């Protein structure tokens, strides 16, 4: 049986691991060998993660039925209020 292994690589220390691609191999030792050759033979990776494809649970839908924009910065428009507050306080800068 040949399995698909997803390979993630870290380019520099401290950076997040990003998906690099996949290799097919009958077991982990071959998967490591192929991943090393494919994604590390030019010193282009600091580290690799090798994960059997079945171990990846993909999620791709993020419904927002209740318009939850108060969780995000774009949910707040403070420009007009800030202007009003500055005018009341007498700290508005003349432009």
């Amino acid at each position, binding site marked *: *049986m*040949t399995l*698909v292994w997803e390979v993630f690589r870290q380019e520099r220390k401290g950076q997040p691991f990003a998906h*690099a*691609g*996949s*290799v*097919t191999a*009958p*077991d982990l030792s*071959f998967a490591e060998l*192929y991943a090393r*050759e*494919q994604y590390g*033979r030019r010193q282009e990776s600091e580290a690799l993660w090798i994960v059997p494809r079945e171990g990846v649970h*993909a999620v*791709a839908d993020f419904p927002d039925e209740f318009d939850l924009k108060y969780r995000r910065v774009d949910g707040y428009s403070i420009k007009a209020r800030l202007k009003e507050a500055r005018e009341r306080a007498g700290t508005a800068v003349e432009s």
Partner: protein
Amino acid sequence: MDTRTQEFVEYVQAGGQVESGDWMPDDYRSKLVKFIEMHGNSELMGVLPERDWILRAPTLQRKLALTAKIQDEVGHAQLIYRVVEDLGKPRSACLDDLVSGKAKFHNVFHYPTKTWGDVGVIAWLVDAAAIVSQKALLKCSYAPYARIMKKICWEESFHILHGRDVILAMVTGTQEQFELVQEALDRWWEPLMHFHGNPIPADEDPMYVWRIKSQGNEDARQQFLEGYVPQIRELGLEIPDPKLRRDDETSVWSYTEPDWDRLKAVVTGHGPASQERLAFRRLSREQVDWVSRIVLAEAA
């Protein structure tokens, strides 16, 4: 065309990208498989002309560099076949179709490599022509292919430099070495002009309509000529086409129309080295079959 397909076409034409698990029209999937599989085949077959020169490389340094380039190309074939596999065609089926002559590979790999000059011309100019096409694939509507192309382009840029270095060593050497390069260029010019395909208008090219490719064939050839003709000429080499010239107002290159029938014959297995290369691939597949059988049996 049904509404869903129409929407899909509009989506990819607006620059939208598709992942392997997304819905896609059957025609899009089969065009992707055909295109990407041919690319994989070309990477795999492309190492054979260079392989012939590993034992004959002039120095140890050149031997090591050539071997590294060959390893890269085989690695590209593996990456690309993985993309095809996730679209539904197993690698073993791709290899079956390749050795039986059913699937195609790129025209430039159907020619023999007669001298060390050929090795330089291939690594420099064939790879340069390939990188023009491959850079355009960074924008491919099929995202897994576009992503893998990033790594491939990165490695190809080292190949071009290696090829240019081989050529520079020879054009600055003896008269005989210079003539070796000129003679190789004379033979490789037509295959290079064939490389990007016949000048079919982009809008009639299904690969462009689906945005598998992001540019038309002639655009790619013009880009190659614009980038590399000056680099060839500055070395004192002569391009064997008296009609080749650039219109400085339009920046368009005109050239002798290549023989498109010959291109068709070459890619359908009638090139000077087509059958010999396929026979070698068939043989090596038979010879290493026991390795994969043992590896798979051990792992089971």
